[in-house]
């Protein structure tokens, strides 16, 4: 019936016309949008100011690292605002270009190449896959690649990776320090059992050689329980962990894997004060698990958390207080926010040292690299342990501390310390040698 009516009534043709019109205008609009997109990005490349130092921060805001990127980026940008508000470094302002690469390699490589053309002297992608893919480009282009808490751990060896800058304790150091904390607590680890519950990815398996090497040295037995990524179901693993009767548990994951691990550990009655995480544990995770339930859990801290460090207090006063904060004020002082402040402070310190060494520039990757690799005893006014970066050691000394969750905040349990660096550096050298051999 409807068929007959459609055939009989005229408007059919006009409807088709409408369709075609919309289709045509649709195609035209899309083409126009695409073209303007290209024009915009080209124009913004030309508009360059002489008195800025450019950092590129294409990071993953939308895919995998979302749990950390927003807070990290907020901290870094707030610190740059603090520095710029005080007149910059040597009259130069820090210009950080933040964008999203969604942990996708073509997008990240596009961002890298675009930022390179815009004259960035440092690029901080905050993503392990992206950092790995950019290593050979950064080495070739002499652009400093920030790889804090991501990328290759062996990049600590500056003689092999001159332009890859972890500038933070790598995962091997974190494992070494955590085990040393266990030793400090128990006086002697002989006959004890340390287990690692890790996400079954290269990242999760990374610390295993350190745990094994230290097991031989310190006499504890080591067992490893991997769970399948992304780690939102670990119910099969934790009963096994319980049955293994560990003296110490290290859980090694990121994002959802961490909160799931904690919930399952609590369910299986594993004492919280015998469990430790790497850097990837924050206040927000505690909200998920339950602030009181997770009381006592340990984590590795590369820098102080909370709002008491002077730099963070200054940010609250001079940046957020004036309404120039880069994000919600409630996030200021969280663990990941402070990681962002820490990395930004180290980068800016690198710029300051670079100006000391070569006041007249020119401002290039190698110029900044000279500064970054000459940072000496830098503490960012008490935010981080005294850090010394050299041409050989891009890790900056490998210091940190262990902190315990007391139900409201992470309370440091130790002073800043460093340990087991001999074992860590054996692993770094071994891996860096393999990298060098592969490039030939």
């Amino acid at each position, binding site marked *: 019936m409807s068929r007959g009516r459609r055939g009989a009534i005229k408007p059919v043709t006009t409807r088709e016309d409408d369709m075609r019109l919309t*289709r045509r205008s*649709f*195609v035209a609009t*899309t083409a126009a*949008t*695409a073209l*303007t*997109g*290209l024009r*915009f*990005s080209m*124009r*913004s490349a030309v508009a360059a100011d002489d008195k800025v130092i450019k950092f590129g921060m294409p990071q993953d*805001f*939308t895919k995998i690292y979302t749990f950390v990127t*927003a807070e990290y*980026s*907020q901290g870094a*940008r707030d610190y740059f605002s603090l520095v710029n508000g005080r007149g910059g470094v040597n009259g130069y302002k820090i210009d950080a270009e*933040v*964008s*999203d690469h*969604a942990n*996708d*390699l*073509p*997008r990240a*490589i*596009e961002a*890298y*190449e*675009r930022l390179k*053309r815009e004259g960035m002297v440092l690029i901080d992608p905050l993503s*392990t*896959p992206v950092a*790995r*893919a950019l*290593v*050979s*480009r950064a080495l070739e282009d002499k652009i400093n690649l920030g790889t804090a808490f991501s990328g*290759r*751990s*062996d990049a600590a060896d500056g003689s092999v990776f001159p332009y890859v800058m972890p500038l933070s304790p790598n995962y091997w150091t974190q494992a070494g320090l955590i085990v040393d904390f266990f030793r400090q607590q128990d006086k002697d680890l002989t006959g004890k059992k340390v287990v690692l519950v890790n996400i*079954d*990815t*290269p990242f999760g*398996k*990374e610390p295993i*050689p350190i745990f094994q090497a230290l097991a031989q040295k310190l006499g504890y037995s080591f067992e490893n329980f991997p769970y399948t990524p992304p780690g939102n179901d670990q119910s099969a693993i934790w009963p096994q962990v319980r049955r293994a009767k560990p003296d110490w548990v290290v859980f090694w994951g990121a994002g959802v894997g961490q909160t799931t691990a904690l919930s399952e550990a609590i369910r299986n009655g594993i004492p919280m004060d015998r469990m430790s995480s790497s850097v990837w544990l924050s206040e927000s995770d505690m909200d998920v698990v339950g602030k009181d339930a997770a009381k006592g859990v340990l984590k590795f801290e590369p820098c102080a958390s909370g709002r008491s460090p002077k730099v963070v207090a200054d940010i609250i006063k001079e940046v957020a207080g004036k309404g120039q904060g*880069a*994000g919600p004020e409630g996030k200021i002082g969280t663990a990941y926010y402070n990681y962002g402040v820490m990395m930004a402070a180290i980068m800016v310190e690198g710029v300051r040292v670079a100006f000391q060494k070569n006041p007249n520039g020119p401002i290039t990757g190698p110029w900044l690299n000279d500064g970054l690799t000459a940072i000496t005893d830098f503490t960012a006014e008490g935010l981080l342990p005294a850090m010394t970066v050299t041409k050989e050691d891009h890790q900056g000394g490998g210091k940190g501390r262990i902190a315990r969750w007391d139900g409201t905040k992470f309370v440091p349990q130790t002073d800043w310390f460093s340990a087991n660096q001999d074992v860590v550096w054996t*692993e770094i050298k071994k*891996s860096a040698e*393999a*990298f060098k051999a*592969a*490039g*030939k």
Partner: protein
Amino acid sequence: MFYRRAGIRHTTYRQERQLWPLPFDRFLVGLVAVLLIAAPFVVDRLYLVAYLLPWLIWSSAALGLNLLMGGAGQIHLGYGAVMAIGAYTSVHLIRFGTPFELAMLAGGLASAAIGSIFGFAALRVKSLYLAMATIAMQYIVDFVITHVPGISGGGMASVEVPPVRFLGILIEGDLRTYFMALAVCAVVTLFMLNVGRTAFGRALAAVREKDYAAEIIGIDTFKYKLLAFWSSSFIGGVIGCVLVVCYLRSVSPEQFHLDLSVQLLAMVIVGGLGSVLGSFFGAGLILFAPIVFNNLIGAGADRLGISIGADLRAHLPLMLYGALIVAFLVVEPLGLAKIYDNVRNYFLVWPFRHARR
């Protein structure tokens, strides 16, 4: 007007069977070829290494998947894993001193061999069930790569690609990697254009339309389904090798996860199933729409002085990207290639509205 076509007047079989019967189409193809060859010398370096190069590589991969999905009608959700096999095989062979040319082919053969083993599933199951079987392949391959240190490259799970030579030419720098990818892409494109005109291609089409009907008319579906998996996986393996040698320069497991498989699937579907041109359009849209939107919104916000929160600024391009894909598929369910075809059909007889067939 543009196409200057007035009726089809073929006098020989040769004329009738040529790829592009219309002079204007031949002109367009030639123009695109010239532009692609001239690109490194005229286009800004950024657009060469960050746009054209990945576009060529992803398009070639989409073509390989399109042979299986559009050509033979077999869905594959683990094409990223197929590429991983090719990439890892060839890189390890190169590291042990095998010439690049042989390593590339060996990568293709390894992918083809393992890909056809999983293709056996296609002999028993179809559509959604086959999709699940191929996803299983993706996870099995991922698992094997990450759990065999000899493959993944140990603790850092990253293997650097040593410098390689193709026919004596060192493949390094922007220019040579681009031309390497372009050459491989050209070979794959020519193969895909011609496969539809061969007995093999016609058999695949028959299997695609209805496999038991194909069996009835004497086509060995067992053989052709496996052959479809074999040849598609071979292309995937070779492209996996090109991807790591020319573009990524190091190989690690995350590069080939399910994300890549889904990305390629989206390219094939948005571009147009079974269309060669569509694979190029699809790859272009899926790869670059997020980047263009991202730059557009970033630059727009800076220029107009609108303060958008970092969160929204990151997510807005993805929303627009999603909306764009939906819009394209609503306007033309048969994909971008069909949109091009509609435009072409319109101009075929322009300024008239209809032409007598």
